[in-house]
């Protein structure tokens, strides 16, 4: 009986924690990616090259996958050129929602930064 009560309480706590809505967050890497994708459609390695060392090849795809899940970026498979085999490249672009989050985040950071840094 006591065990059932404990399990119910743990379940309730998890449900409450997962149902609480947080405003969208943006990490530094996600911001860099959105900045780069806001102007043009790029694939993973192009993003790494364009970031000038701010993005690493081993983590950019994981970050892109998570951003896709959050709805910040969208992806499409680029058709392979004639006669070329293998997997198609995955091209990424920022979604309108992603751009809104980036703009809101930039404004927030600007407002929260100390006076001398503005």
């Amino acid at each position, binding site marked *: 009986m006591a065990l059932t009560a404990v399990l119910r309480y743990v379940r309730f706590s*998890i449900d409450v924690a997962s149902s609480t809505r947080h405003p969208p967050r943006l990490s530094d890497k996600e911001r860099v990616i959105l900045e780069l994708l806001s102007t043009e459609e790029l*694939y993973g390695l192009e993003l790494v090259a364009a970031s000038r060392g701010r993005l690493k090849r*081993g983590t950019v795809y994981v970050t892109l996958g*998570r951003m896709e899940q959050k709805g910040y970026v969208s992806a499409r498979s680029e058709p392979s050129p004639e006669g070329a085999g293998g997997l*198609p*490249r995955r091209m990424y672009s920022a979604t309108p929602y992603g751009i809104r989050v980036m703009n809101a985040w930039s404004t927030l950071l600007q407002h929260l930064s100390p006076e001398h840094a503005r």
Partner: protein
Amino acid sequence: MTAERIRRVLARICSEATLTRIVDPILADMRWERDRPSWLGYLALLKALAVHSTLSIPDALGRAWRDDEHAVPRIAGLVLASALVAAVALTALPLTFAPFSMKSVPLVRLVVLLLPQALVLTLPAALLLAVPVALRNRALTRTLARRTVAVSICCVAATLVVMLWMPEANQSYRVLASGNPSVPRGPNEWGFATLREQIDVLNLTSEDRMTPEARNMSRRLEYAYHVRVALISAPIYLGLLALGVTGSPAGRRRPVVAGVVALVLYLPWLFEISEATTASLERFPSVPPQVYAWTPMLVIAAVGLWLIARHPPADAQPPITEAR
């Protein structure tokens, strides 16, 4: 060619989403890199998969917790509850015959000191009852079976902790029972390292010069050592048996009865085996003690795997789609 082979291997391990979002883009982009060695691409793939797996742990744990109407926490909770109840019941017997000198010791303390040696038996055995009961009225899918094995592995860790605690708890109980703080430790009160050391000391004497008593002692200690290791890993074999029982027609019809029957058969069987082994160790000196220690566990695993093979877990139901 290598990329295709790697993708084929990863397709067996990774989810569809991981393949689409991580593996495929990296392998596809590698084709456009002419000026860098391809091993750098594979290294990036490895790193990406490692980062992705680490970041996915909370999600995976959350899914395991929620899915199938909280089947996994139910198994874990039932294992804990039934193991504790059975362990307390097992400790009742020695407490009934506790010497008069211990009457002044608080009962809770005595139970706590006796619990470890009971828990090493009841914690793995509890899976036999918990799994069929927790999964009743539920289709046994491959995912659920994998998660049950994961719970069994957690039980292995818990049994290891209890097993490491057991010698000290036993010794404390003996000190209380005898009233002598310097009562010498017996084999059950030695830790793994001491037990191994004693076996090695006995085995230093060459086989032809060893007395029969020393040989028997060495074999008994070797048996005790391997039984402990086998008991630590027992949750895996008993978890397999529990899955087999759950998937069997009897387990599906009457899961509680099937679980209770499996549990009731297992514990006396284990005690019987232990008794028979003690006698056989001296009677058949050519049979290595390891065989005696591991055979019961291997028999349990074999029965479990046989039952699972007869009634294998089903694939998860595909989502309902519109009729064409």
